[in-house]
């Protein structure tokens, strides 16, 4: 069994319509490619970026990121 971080960035971003990947990237001072990688689950952000993302999405950290176990 292993643990990994899952996120709901795409879900919250689309709920907070209309927020594009480019707008979220600009709000968090990262590239759009980093947002794409985050949403695809191919990159785990630093704690600082995780807080920035949660703030930009208007959510608590744990609403955006969860620490999950997978088999």
């Amino acid at each position, binding site marked *: 069994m292993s643990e990994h971080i899952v996120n709901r960035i795409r879900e919250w971003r689309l709920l907070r319509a209309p927020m594009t990947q480019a707008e979220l*990237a*600009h709000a968090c*001072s*990262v*590239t*759009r*490619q*980093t947002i*794409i*990688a985050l*949403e*695809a689950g*191919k*990159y785990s*952000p*630093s704690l*600082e*970026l995780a807080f920035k993302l949660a703030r930009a999405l208007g959510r608590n950290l744990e609403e955006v990121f969860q620490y999950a176990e997978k088999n």
Partner: protein
Amino acid sequence: MRSVQRLAWVLLLATLAGALGALFGPSGRWGGVDLGGTGAAVLMLALGGAVWLFAVRSDQVFPEHMSVSERRAWVGLAFIVVILASFARQLWVLSGSASIPESIHGLFAHQFIQRLITLIIAWSVISSLIGRRAGEVETDERDLRLRHRADRAGDWAFTLIVIAGICVLASIPAPLLAWWLSPIVLANLLIGLLIAKTLVEHVALALAYRAGRA
């Protein structure tokens, strides 16, 4: 594919063809054409064209899904490959010469350093032009993390090559080593070591970007 991207491909192919002609055909003629001189001219024209293209259309040369850092990584890889070819040519010339040059002037005589400086200047100019897009983040924490991983791959390659070099040197008889290992050969081996380390770093970085793409 956009017309700008088609032009970029033409310039890339012209750069490679020019580099091959300039590096491997300096004394050869093909159909009455001086391969070395023509290749050098094509190489300089293609590099000039690439600088111009990046100066006026840097946004449109690469696919939209590539970040500025990824674009720089691929450009760096292309330049490192040309530098490696130039270095291989330098070694080829040295191995074929009647006497191995004993001073740094010998390196200048083979024009390797001049070529290296020209390529590094063109590389720096093109890299800076790639990042000219106003208001866009050029490098973020993901880029730095990928670069760190690529640097570690380069460090591993460096360590392995040094260990392999130690094993080779230890297995060569001392009289043969004294005849073969002149200061200028040692200098070339060290240059080759640095180029190999940089090549591994750039390959690892370009592949990491490619793998991380959604």
